[in-house]
């Protein structure tokens, strides 16, 4: 993905999360991941992404 497209995605997600509200954002993001995983089609790639997203979560 080109950087400009990444920025567009970033902006669209931020706006949509604000639109649906903090309480629903977790459900929204989980649904989004399932949709993107279905489109991606590779269980291995999705598994790698799950591990990558779980890293550095300490806050």
């Amino acid at each position, binding site marked *: 993905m080109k950087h400009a497209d*990444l920025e567009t995605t970033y902006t669209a997600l*931020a706006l949509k999360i604000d639109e649906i509200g903090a309480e629903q954002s977790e459900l929204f993001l989980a649904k989004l991941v399932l949709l993107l995983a279905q489109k991606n089609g590779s269980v291995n790639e999705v598994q790698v992404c799950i591990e990558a*997203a779980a890293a550095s979560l300490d806050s």
Partner: protein
Amino acid sequence: MRPAGRGDTDSLYFSYPHFDAPKRDTQEQSAAVAIVGAGPIGMTAALALAKEGVASVVFDNKATFNDGSRAICVARPSYYIMEQIGALTPFIDKSLGWTTGRTFFRGQQILEFEMPDSADEKFRPMYNLQQQYIEQFLWQAANAHPLIDIRWQSEVTDIEDTDTGAKLTVRDPKGAYPFNATWVLACDGARSPLRKMRGLRLKGENFEGRYVIADVQMDHDYPTIRRALFDPTSRPGGTVLIHKQPDDIWRIDYQLEDNETTQDALREETVRATVTAVLKDINYNDPWELEWWSVYSANTLALDDYRDGCVFFVGDSAHIVPIFGVRGLNNGLADAANIGWKLGWVLNGKAGARLLDSYTPERRGATLDVFANATKSARFMTPNTHGWKLMRDAALSLALTHPFAGALANPRQMTAFTYCGSPAVLTDDPAFKGGAVVGALMPEVKLADGFLSDMLGQGFSVLCFDAALAHEIQHDALKVVYLPLSQTLIDKFAADAGTAYLIRPDMHIAGRWRTASAGDIIQGYDSVIFQKETQL
């Protein structure tokens, strides 16, 4: 503010001059142009007018330079302005040029970015220089100019329209006197008294974000690289910016949390404690001295029209922009240069009065562009909703292991605004595929001997790439610059041998022709300066 025991202008490194009030014995009581405010914008406007041979009188209510406003980043387009008005040399000698930024998340570097720069560029993309030096260097140039009369300790307290312009009331230590001007440039800052006197209001958004800026002096060994610290130990969840300035001065900039009151944040011990913690984050554990600090809030506010009769609003009097675009000062300098050459040309009879109507669309357009970019930067630096904060935090967390996400932390670059659609530029020629567009700042090119910008005339210039066409253009007001085609010129101007570019005095492109004739170029020139109309 300064530490306890030090006076308002008692700096560790800068000597504020004291300017006496005018003696008032042989003073002019009128001028074609009165400029209100002797800050960087007013001085630049006066010098831009003087370059066109137009005299001005500059009024300022203070007896020295600004201490409250603290711009430090001067962008490449502003250095062209300094060069055009004859003030550049001390800026080059004193300032610190830079090209690199580094972004850290919880102490780990997640991004290093380079701003656009190359051997073709005469100036670096950004220079750091304290505002007092900016004002001092501009004052030195203005004070030495025979066409500029600067009156310190002289406050403009009233303005009244007349048949020929405006009558100002000026109050100095000896009392009040009237002053008549055909045109008035309001360069009197964000709180602009003239704006209030004219009954005008800035419109737009007030953001709630508040930021502390503190300058410290320390012997810190780090290059001139702007550092952004996200979620550092010193400010958990917050963002800190660090800039190097001349004289071993470092700028530390941090946002206040909602639960931190402005009053407490401004206390000297609070500032000292925060600075100590920030310096620990960057591994600086040696002595430092606190120079100065202040608080500001980020707003996006502008006037609907930068002109009100014979009064033009220039710089912060016309617009207030957030800090993230580093465009408060830079945007104001571009305003001053823009109105300076246009008013100069109209007063000289070289251009028609309608040229002045292009000031608001060009410069207000630039401000709206700044708003868009600054809002975008602010959403990353200091997100103020759940959605923007969640996405920002996701990008930062991912960036620790995935560089693509770190690129989201890259701030927007400061580039000059493109004046497309302005009445003072022509419609672009659709025959071009690429190249610098109409309204853009002319791209710089390194030539065998110097730079392309060095070849430009004082007024309008024509770039052409064919010796016969160059020879054909016979016009007293046009400086013809003939450049044999090179790959660089083909790339930057999408040029072939028949191509020509018309460049304005402010180096913006007024028009371009893929296949030009001398007649087209001269007709285009007449059109953008509104020469075919009755003069004022």
